[in-house]
């Protein structure tokens, strides 16, 4: 593996060089090629752009702001601080190689526009590749939140099911946090379930902010973090979901990049990255999201809700298909929320029969919401080569998330390849929604997926309907992805082949 590193320290005479030497030695010992740029007091010689272009990953062992960091944009990296590199260089090298294996791949030759300005690239292709790299950076940082949060929530449902049965799964989300603070009992299964659920739910709260924040970070480097995260949080607050988070990621990133290029007096320059850029860019992102984007979303949701309510009494199979399509469209975004809220609101009606329309709607909505993460898990299993390493890892978690009716498990796939995933998601989810309605399954739990299966009437039909939608979505997404040429994916394949060659010849 080829690594580049930047070292720096406050004084610039000791740790900068000790870290450099330690990293070079540890790299050599582990069989990696490590080139270090020492940004110290003795002046720094910039790394040759061709070395940077060839590098698989970057190590920042820097206590000062890394100079010209944009040279390394798009590469997987670890940021460890100089002391860690001096004290435990082998550990840092191991972390860097792990990051390379897990993270965003180095761009294909020629795509690294900043590092290789001499190469004449098709500007259209260049922009496309970079947009995809920005997206993938956001997605790869979001995936751990999806996996950790989603699995915690699913475990919460699972423990609740074992502890108090299906009713426990319904109840677990209602346990107030104050109960955990005041009356947590290690002997109570439900308390553990609630602990898992709440922790997972809070981790999920970072999902859209992390996506947005790290897209902005990929675009604008550190100054992009704040407007990106804030924009993602506002997107959640106004109900815009991950689609809004994509918008705020790009908006925050480019705002921060633009402001960071302003020509300002020397006295102001010092406070630009810490105060001025985050302040201005966050404000603008907040303004745009709340005032310009938030209002139309709110009225859209309102309009959709009243339209859905006006449909009651019409053909149930068509309603099921429609609700399914809405569930699959934005995976936790505004349209998904309208369909879900429509179903959950129906549950509140008192004294319904076991097969009332309200319960059948809930079953259709739940089934449809399980389809896309399961389908992505299936697709990553049967057609590995169409997905990045990060997506394949996420695919494994998506089995559990989909089975637990956590639609957000599919967001990383959708964020990375928007229209292909949404088209396939809508197709399969709509089918599942219609099938569940046609088969007459009914469900009175608002969440839980397979963990509330005992509460579902005609459970086998329900499972069959989910499986049918899953297969359709997986087939469509595989078909659509097969027809495209993805530069990031190709770069990964090339890297994989090289790694295999090295492994064979070694």
């Amino acid at each position: 593996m080829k690594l580049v590193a930047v070292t720096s320290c406050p004084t610039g005479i000791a740790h900068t060089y000790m870290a450099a030497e330690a990293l070079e030695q540890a790299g050599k010992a582990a069989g990696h090629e490590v080139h270090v740029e020492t940004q110290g007091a003795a002046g720094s010689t910039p790394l040759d752009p061709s070395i940077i272009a060839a590098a698989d990953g970057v190590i920042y062992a820097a206590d000062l702001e890394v100079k010209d960091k944009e040279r390394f944009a798009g590469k997987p990296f670890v940021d460890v601080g100089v002391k860690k590199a001096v004290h435990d260089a082998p550990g840092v090298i191991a972390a860097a190689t792990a990051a390379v294996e897990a993270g965003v791949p180095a761009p294909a030759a020629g795509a690294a526009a900043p590092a290789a300005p001499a190469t004449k690239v098709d500007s259209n292709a260049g922009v496309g590749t970079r947009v995809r790299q920005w997206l993938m950076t956001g997605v790869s940082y979001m995936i751990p939140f999806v996996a950790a949060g989603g699995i915690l929530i699913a475990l919460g449902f699972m423990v609740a099911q074992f502890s108090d049965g299906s009713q426990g799964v319904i109840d677990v989300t209602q346990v107030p946090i104050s109960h955990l603070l005041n009356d947590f009992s290690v002997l109570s299964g439900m308390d553990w379930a609630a602990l898992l659920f709440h922790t997972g739910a809070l981790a999920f709260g970072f999902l859209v902010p992390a996506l947005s924040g790290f897209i902005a970070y990929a675009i604008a480097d550190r100054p992009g973090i704040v407007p990106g995260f804030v924009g993602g949080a506002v997107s959640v607050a106004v109900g815009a979901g991950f689609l809004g988070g994509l918008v705020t990621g790009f908006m925050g990133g480019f705002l921060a990049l633009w402001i960071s290029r302003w020509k300002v007096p020397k006295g102001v320059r010092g406070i630009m990255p810490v105060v001025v850029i985050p302040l201005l860019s966050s404000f603008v992102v907040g303004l745009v999201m709340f005032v310009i984007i938030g209002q139309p979303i709110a009225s859209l949701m309102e309009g959709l809700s009243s339209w859905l309510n006006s449909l009651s009494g019409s053909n149930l199979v068509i309603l099921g298909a429609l609700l399914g399509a809405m569930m699959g469209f934005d995976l936790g975004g505004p349209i998904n929320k309208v369909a879900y809220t429509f179903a959950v609101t129906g549950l509140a009606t008192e004294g319904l029969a076991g097969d009332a329309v309200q319960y059948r709607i809930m079953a259709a909505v739940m089934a449809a919401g399980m389809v896309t993460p399961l389908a992505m898990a299936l697709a990553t299993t049967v057609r590995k080569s169409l997905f990045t390493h990060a997506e394949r890892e996420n695919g494994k978690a998506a089995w559990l998330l989909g089975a637990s009716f956590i639609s957000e498990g599919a967001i990383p796939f959708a964020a990375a390849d928007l229209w292909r995933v949404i088209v396939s998601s809508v197709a399969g989810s709509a089918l599942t929604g219609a099938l569940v309605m046609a088969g007459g399954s009914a469900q009175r739990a608002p969440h839980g997926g397979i963990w509330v299966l005992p509460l579902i009437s005609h459970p086998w039909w329900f499972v069959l309907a989910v499986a049918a939608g899953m297969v359709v979505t997986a087939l469509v997404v595989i078909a659509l992805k097969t027809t495209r040429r993805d530069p990031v994916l190709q770069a990964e394949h090339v890297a994989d082949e090289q790694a295999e060659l090295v492994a064979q010849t070694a």
Partner: protein
Amino acid sequence: MSTPLITPDLVAVDVVAADRDAATRQLIDLLAAAGRVTDADGFHADVRAREAQMATGMPGGIGLPHARSAHVTAPSLAVGKVPAGVDFGAPDGPATLIFLIAAPDSGDAAHLQILAALARRLVHESFRQSLKDATDPATVAEIITREVVPS
């Protein structure tokens, strides 16, 4: 290089000190006596400020106080061996070998290369061990002069 990085009179082989501040001060006094530091108190304050940012103790019993300072006339190294050990904030225990690096504030890059080379050598266990094994100031200075060559 007009001034060598280290000379035997910048090496103390039996430092006894209560804490890192006192140990550092003894080495500073060596630099001041050799005329490499014009204001011992001023330079000491600079070293303290650096040490306060992040302890300079390294694994393997090394303390590495250092600073760039206006009170330093030439890139210099003072070495102190502390048989009883003195804490430098390293996770694995007290330091028995102390390197005080003094860099001039306005030193040009070429001038500072020697210190970069020294820092790189310090990472190597064999280099540190040979200094720990050396018993007299002349040997210590000789090892450092021989091994630390700017690249």
